[in-house]
C-alpha cells in the first residue's frame, strides 16, 4: 500500500503546480478562491462535464462556468445519443465488402463454364449470398463479405455455390415467394446491376474546380485538430482506449451513451 499512497500523493503536488501557474497569471486572487476554482474545474473535467450539472451552485452560473459548458459542446452538436460511429463504420464496411463479394460472384458467372455459371447463379440465391445481403444493411455482413472476397475466382465460387444451391433446393428454402429467397434475389440483382453499370461507365475521372486560396470561413474542426495535435493524439482509436480530459474530449458534456453502445469489430481495410 505504501507505493499506492505515494502515487495518490502526487496529485497534491499536481494541484499545487496548477495553483502556482495560475497565480502567476492572476495576481490578486485569494488562495482559497484559487483553490476552489482549480478543484471545481478539475472535478468538472474528471466527470466529463457531469459535475457542472451535479454541483450547480455559483460556479455553473458564473461567466467562466458557462464558458466551459459552452466550450465543450463540439461533440454535443452531433446529437450524441444517436451518434454511433462504430455502427456507421460497420454498415459502411459491411456494404462495401458485401458489394465486392457480389461482384466476385458475378465475375464468376461470366468467366466460368455454363455449369459453373448456373452454379454461381444458384449460389446467388444461396444462403451465403443471403447473409451477404443482410450484411449490406448491417454489421454482420462484414465477416461474410470478407470470406467471400477471399475465395476470389469465379470457378471456386461457382463450385461452392453449386453445393450451396443443391443444399438449399432440397430444403426449398429459397423458393419464390419465401422471404429469404426474395431478399437474396433482389439484393444480388441490385449488386449485379451496379457492377454492370460500373463496367459501362468506367472509373470516374478526377474532376473538380480549382477554387484558389480559401481564406474565409470558420472551421470548428480546425480548433479541435490543434487541441488533439497538442495532446499528441494521432490515432482516433486512442480516444476510446484511454482517458483524456478537457473540453475537446469526445466524452465531455455529451453524456455517456457514446461509450456504452454495442460496438462492432472493425475489419482492417482490404
Amino acid at each position, binding site marked *: 500500500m505504501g507505493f499506492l499512497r505515494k502515487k495518490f500523493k502526487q496529485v497534491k503536488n499536481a494541484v499545487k503546480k496548477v495553483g502556482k501557474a495560475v497565480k502567476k497569471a492572476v495576481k490578486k486572487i485569494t488562495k482559497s478562491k484559487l483553490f476552489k476554482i482549480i478543484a471545481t474545474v478539475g472535478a468538472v473535467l474528471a466527470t466529463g462535464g457531469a459535475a457542472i450539472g451535479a454541483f450547480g451552485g455559483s460556479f455553473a452560473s458564473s461567466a467562466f462556468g458557462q464558458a466551459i459548458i459552452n466550450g465543450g459542446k463540439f461533440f454535443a452538436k452531433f446529437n450524441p445519443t444517436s451518434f454511433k460511429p462504430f455502427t456507421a463504420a460497420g454498415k459502411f464496411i459491411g456494404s462495401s465488402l458485401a458489394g465486392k463479394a457480389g461482384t466476385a460472384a458475378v465475375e464468376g458467372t461470366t468467366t466460368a463454364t455454363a455449369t459453373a455459371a448456373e452454379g454461381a447463379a444458384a449460389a446467388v440465391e444461396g444462403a451465403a449470398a443471403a447473409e451477404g445481403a443482410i450484411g449490406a444493411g448491417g454489421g454482420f455482413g462484414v465477416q461474410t463479405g470478407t470470406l467471400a472476397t477471399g475465395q476470389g475466382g469465379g470457378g471456386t465460387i461457382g463450385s461452392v455455390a453449386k453445393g450451396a444451391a443443391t443444399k438449399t433446393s432440397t430444403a426449398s428454402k429459397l423458393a419464390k415467394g419465401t422471404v429469404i429467397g426474395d431478399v437474396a434475389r433482389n439484393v444480388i440483382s441490385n449488386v449485379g446491376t451496379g457492377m454492370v453499370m460500373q463496367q459501362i461507365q468506367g472509373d470516374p475521372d478526377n474532376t473538380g474546380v480549382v477554387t484558389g486560396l480559401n481564406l474565409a470561413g470558420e472551421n470548428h474542426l480546425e480548433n479541435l485538430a490543434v487541441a488533439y495535435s497538442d495532446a499528441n493524439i494521432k490515432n482516433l482509436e486512442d480516444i*476510446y482506449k484511454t482517458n*483524456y480530459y478537457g473540453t475537446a474530449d469526445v466524452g465531455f458534456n455529451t453524456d455517456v451513451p457514446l*461509450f456504452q453502445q454495442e460496438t462492432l469489430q472493425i475489419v482492417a481495410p482490404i
Partner: protein
Amino acid sequence: MAEKKLKLKPIIADNVSDATEKIILNAIESGYNLNDIPESKEAPVIGKRKITNEGIDEVVNLTSKGRAIPGQSLTNSKEQPYPWETPPKFTNPREALNNIVSTILNPKGAKHIVNALAKGASVTDLSLSILYAKFANGEITPDLMLLLSEPVMYTIMGIGEEANIKYNIDDNDINEVDSEDEIEQKNKIKNLFSEIKNNQKPVESVVPRSILEQIKKQGPEIRKSLLSKGEK
C-alpha cells in the same frame, strides 16, 4: 462597457491537472475574471482530524488481528478464486470512471463523502479506499486503479468545495503552510523593515492601513537608534 470575452479554445490533455491548468489560463487570456465567481459568504466547515481514544483502540484492534501467512493464498481452491483473481468487470478506463463517478455523485454517496471530509478524512484516503474496494471486488485492475486516482480525487475535492468544507488533501494538512509562500512572506517582512529603516513608504498591499498609520505616527521614534542619546 462590458469587457468583451473570447470563446474558450477546445482543450484536451491526458491528465486532469494539465487540462485544468490549460483551461484556466486560456480563460484568463480570453478575458474572464476569476474574481467574478462569487465566494460563499458563510465560513467554511473545518475538517480537522480529531484523534480520540476510541479511534486509537479501533486501530489497535484491527492491527492486532494479524495478517495472512506468506503463501496462504496459494492454498486456496482454484475453483473459488478471489474476485480480483478473475477477469475485471471494466477494462475501459472511461467506463470504469463513469461507474465510479456515478457512485460518488449519487446523493447517498456524496452525503457520506461530505460527512467524512467534514470529520477530517483526507481526499487521498477516501479515493484510495473507493478504488481499492473496486479492485478488491474484481471490478477494476490495479493499473486502472492508478489511472483513475487523479480524476476520483478531483471529484471528491469538487464535492468538498461545493459543500464549503476546508478539507485535508493528504493526512492532516489543513493548516499546512506552503514552504514557498513562507519564504515569500519572510522576504516581504525583511524588505518592510529595511524600507522603514531607510525612511521609505511601505507598500500598502503588504501592510494593513491601520498599521501603516501607526507607523507614520511613531516613525521618528522607530528611526532612532537604540544607542542614541535621548532628549534631556
